[in-house]
Structures are given as structure tokens and as C-alpha cells.
């Protein structure tokens, strides 16, 4: 079967360039540092809001209606759940200024859709973002390299690609935005749970029947506490210096099981989940890894320098008093 990428790619590139240029111009004009601005403008009217309504009319609903040309009747059908996309989610995502047909064939504008369209090849992230300086700081090439090293790489799982984890219809920049750590954790872990906590999805790529996440992680003293406070990738990836979100998912045998890798002052959480914040504020109010304290308390990682000193002083004074008393007892 011959598949082709629609020529519309160039249009989307053009829009991205124009959007990027606008942001850079505004940034320079207002003398804001470039890294504080996002390339995608999030608070304006989506560029193709009206055009996309046509698609969301059916694909944004659980049920859709159409006129059957043969019978002349209005038919009401259930939409395939895998093809339902929430318009609000789409317009909150990074691809909000796209027209549906930027990525999908323009032939989709005709209904009923041609059945062969379902075999169209999807873009990968690099098709749009690769080799483009606008996206340099997002490290797409590095992400791709890391992905190909990971257990998720197509070498291990043929059908696996970026979209297996990141839905382009709702993808948001969580780590670099003003979301709380809890929100980031939930968002990222839900990405993993989509397959790893869903036997139906999991068996799309594996014949293995897997036990529940809680059973797999029964060595953790409090599974829910850990799962709500840290991301799966904290233990299941090798942290990468220049990336916000590590993509080299390790084989399960190589996952971190040594508690003190997080529960110590040299906590690996500071080079993963709290990497961004830790660059801004390494030490605050004498607490080691103080930034974690906004969201959690990690035993061993959140000691306080001043309390440590105070407790040593108190202990020292007590011991000195005891030694003094012993001396008095000896010399009478």
C-alpha cells in the first residue's frame, strides 16, 4: 500500500515560523528573556477554530448524526471511542492553532470518509519539529535519540511511536509551565497509565498479561503516596542532563529500587522531577532540596542544615553535662 504525507506540511511550518517570529519580536520589544516565553501563543483565539468545528461536530461527540443518502433518513450513530477528541483539550494543547487537515488528509473533509484514509501515515514529531531552530530548546532530536535507546523503541516494540504516549490532539507543555508539581506528576503518570494500567491498551503492543501497578510495586511502603508524589519516569529512566523529561525508558530490571537514591540529600529527584525548580533555587531556609517541601516531604532528602546543627549542639551539651557529672562523681 502506498502512503503519502500530505503537502499541507509546508503550511503548518509556515504558521509555526510566523508564530515563532511574532513571539520573538514581542519578546525583544518588551525586553523579556526569551526562555520565559512559550513559542505557542495560548491566550488568543485558535487560528482555525471555525474550520475545525466541522470535524469536532462528529469527532468531539459520543454520538453523531448524518443524512443517509440511500435512505434519505437522518441516522444517529455512536462514535468510535478511539476517535473522539475533546475540543477544549485540543484548544488547550500546543497544537491549538492547527487546522485538523494540517496533519490529516484534506480528503477527510468529505463525508463519509474514504475507508483508505485510515491507512494514512501519521507524522512523527520530527517531521515538523526536527532540524528547526524554532524548537531547538525542546531538544526534539535528543528526545528521538533517547527514545530509540529506550525499551519503548521500535527495535523492541515495532508499533511504538511518539503518539503512543503523547496525544498530539491534547499535548500540553506541563513541565515548562506554571503547573504545580502535583499536576505535572498526575499528567505524566496518566500518560504511562494509559497503557500500563489498561490491559486493553497494553495488549495492543504485548501479548503479556500484566499484574496491576500496585502488585508490581508492592515493595514500596506506600504505593499511592509514591505514585501521587513522583512520576514513573523518576525510577524508570536514566536522567539526562540537558532534557527536562528523560525519554530513555529503561528495562524493568534496571529501574531504581534502591530507596536512598531519592531518600538522601543527594536525591535523584533533584535531577529529574525538581530539575527546573532546583536550577532556580538550590537551597532555601537551610533545607536540603528545599524545593521539594512545597509539594512533599521526602525522608532523608529534606534535612535542615540549621536543625542538624542545633540537634548536634544540644546532644553535645547533654554529653558534656554527663561527662562533667561523671568527673564530679569520680573526684567526689
Amino acid at each position, binding site marked *: 500500500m502506498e502512503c503519502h504525507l500530505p503537502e499541507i506540511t509546508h503550511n503548518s511550518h509556515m504558521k509555526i515560523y510566523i508564530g515563532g517570529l511574532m513571539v520573538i519580536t514581542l519578546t525583544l520589544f518588551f525586553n523579556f528573556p526569551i526562555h520565559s516565553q512559550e513559542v505557542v501563543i495560548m491566550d488568543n483565539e485558535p487560528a482555525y477554530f471555525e474550520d475545525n468545528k466541522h470535524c469536532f461536530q462528529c469527532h468531539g461527540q459520543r454520538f453523531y448524526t448524518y443524512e443517509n443518502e440511500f435512505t434519505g433518513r437522518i441516522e444517529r450513530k455512536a462514535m468510535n471511542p478511539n476517535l473522539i477528541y475533546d475540543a477544549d483539550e485540543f484548544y488547550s494543547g500546543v497544537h491549538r492553532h492547527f487546522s485538523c487537515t494540517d496533519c490529516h488528509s484534506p480528503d477527510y473533509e468529505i463525508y463519509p470518509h474514504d475507508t483508505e484514509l485510515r491507512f494514512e501515515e501519521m507524522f512523527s514529531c520530527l517531521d515538523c519539529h526536527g532540524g528547526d531552530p524554532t524548537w531547538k530548546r525542546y531538544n526534539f532530536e535528543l528526545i528521538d535519540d533517547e527514545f530509540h535507546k529506550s525499551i519503548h523503541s521500535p527495535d523492541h516494540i515495532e508499533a511504538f511511536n511518539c503518539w503512543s504516549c503523547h496525544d498530539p490532539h491534547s499535548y500540553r507543555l506541563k513541565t515548562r509551565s506554571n503547573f504545580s508539581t502535583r499536576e505535572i506528576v498526575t499528567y505524566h503518570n496518566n500518560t504511562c497509565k494509559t497503557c500500563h494500567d489498561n490491559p486493553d491498551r497494553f495488549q495492543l503492543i504485548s501479548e503479556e498479561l500484566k499484574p496491576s501497578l500496585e502488585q508490581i510495586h508492592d515493595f514500596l511502603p506506600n504505593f499511592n*503516596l509514591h505514585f501521587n508524589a513522583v512520576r514513573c519516569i523518576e525510577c524508570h529512566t536514566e536522567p539526562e542532563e540537558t532534557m527536562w523529561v528523560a525519554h530513555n525508558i529503561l528495562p524493568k530490571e534496571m529501574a531504581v529500587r534502591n530507596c*536512598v537514591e531519592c531518600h538522601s540529600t543527594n536525591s535523584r529527584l533533584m535531577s529529574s522531577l525538581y530539575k527546573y525548580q532546583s536550577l532556580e533555587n538550590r537551597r532555601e531556609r537551610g533545607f536540603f532540596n528545599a524545593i521539594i*517541601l*512545597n509539594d*512533599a516531604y521526602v525522608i532523608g532528602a529534606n534535612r535542615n542544615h540549621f*536543625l542538624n546543627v542545633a540537634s548536634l549542639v*544540644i546532644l553535645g551539651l*547533654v554529653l558534656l553535662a554527663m561527662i562533667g557529672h561523671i568527673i564530679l562523681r569520680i573526684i567526689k
Partner: protein
Amino acid sequence: MAEEKIYLYPVWLRIWHGINALLIIFLIATGISMQYANPEYPFIRFDLAVSIHNICGVLLAINYVIFLPSNLATSNRRYYVDGLKNIGPRMMRMMRYYLTEQPKKKPSPFPVTKENKFNPLQAMTYSIVMVIFLPLVITTGLALLFPETIAKEVFGYSGLFLTALLHSAIGFLISIFLIVHIYVCTTGKKITDNFKGIITGYHTNH
């Protein structure tokens, strides 16, 4: 002077005290190991320390719940209540004794009798430990065992963080108490006298 043996520690109290002592030693050791966890110098393996700490913490809570009604139902409570009467001047007197008279082996101004088991300093510290420290360390410990029960934010600070901070601070104070308690027990006629007393039940007055 002839030795006088007074039966001060009934069986239930000795069992309770022994269990308490063992649990607190385990809790302090595992607590320090977790708080100062270091991958290069592991004291007790972290997951093992967490399990031991959790089990001992729950047992300590049960032991405390047993102690309360036992103390109220027996005459043991009067040692705490009576020991705290006119506590200020009596405590000062006892401190003076520890600092200047005890090293010279002078008799205590508050000798141990069937009616007065604790001297004023003991009555005060044991009361603080039993009525303030232990309930606080147990409550915060149980809350940390079920962190979903802890308020998310208290006065702008993470409730979990404040609970953990209070738990470790009280744990530290209990450790200091334990060190002083053990040392003071060595100040009998012989170093081992008081330790023998809590095992046999008999206190020896010389």
C-alpha cells in the same frame, strides 16, 4: 546503713517498660538511619528501616494505649500526680542535689519510698514524656503512616512537612531523654542497682 528493699515496679509495669524501651531504641535507630540516609554509608537498609520503624511505631502506640488505663486503674498514677506538687522549688532543690551533693554520695532530699517513687525532676520529665512527647510522636507517626489524613496546608506550609518536622523534633527530644534516663540510672549505689531494680521490681535504698 542497712539495705532496704522496696517493691516499686509491679509485673505489668516492668513488662510495659521493657517493651517501651526496646521499641523506642529500635525507633530511634531506624529513625536516625532514615533521616540521615546515605547511599554510600548505609546504616540500616532504607526499606528495612521503614518497615521496622512502622511496625515498632504501631506497637508503641498499642503499648501506650495499654499504659493509660493501667496507670489510671492502679496506684501508679499517684507517683505522677503527687510528684508534681509544688514542683518549682522542689525541682531546684533536686538539681542542686544532682550537681553538688550526689557526687559526694550525700543522701537524696527526696528519698525513694513506697509513696514517692519519683523525685521532682523525674516526676516532671516522665510526665512531659508520657503526657506530651509520646502522644505527639505517636499521633504524628500514625499520621505519616496514613499521609492522606494530613491537612494539605497549615498556615501556608505543607501539612505533611510540618507533621514530619514535629515528628522528628519530638523523636530527637525522646532520644535525649533516653540518653539522660539511662545515665541517671547509673547513679545508684552501684552502677547496676537501678537497672536490676526495673528487672526484679525491687528498689534498693542504701
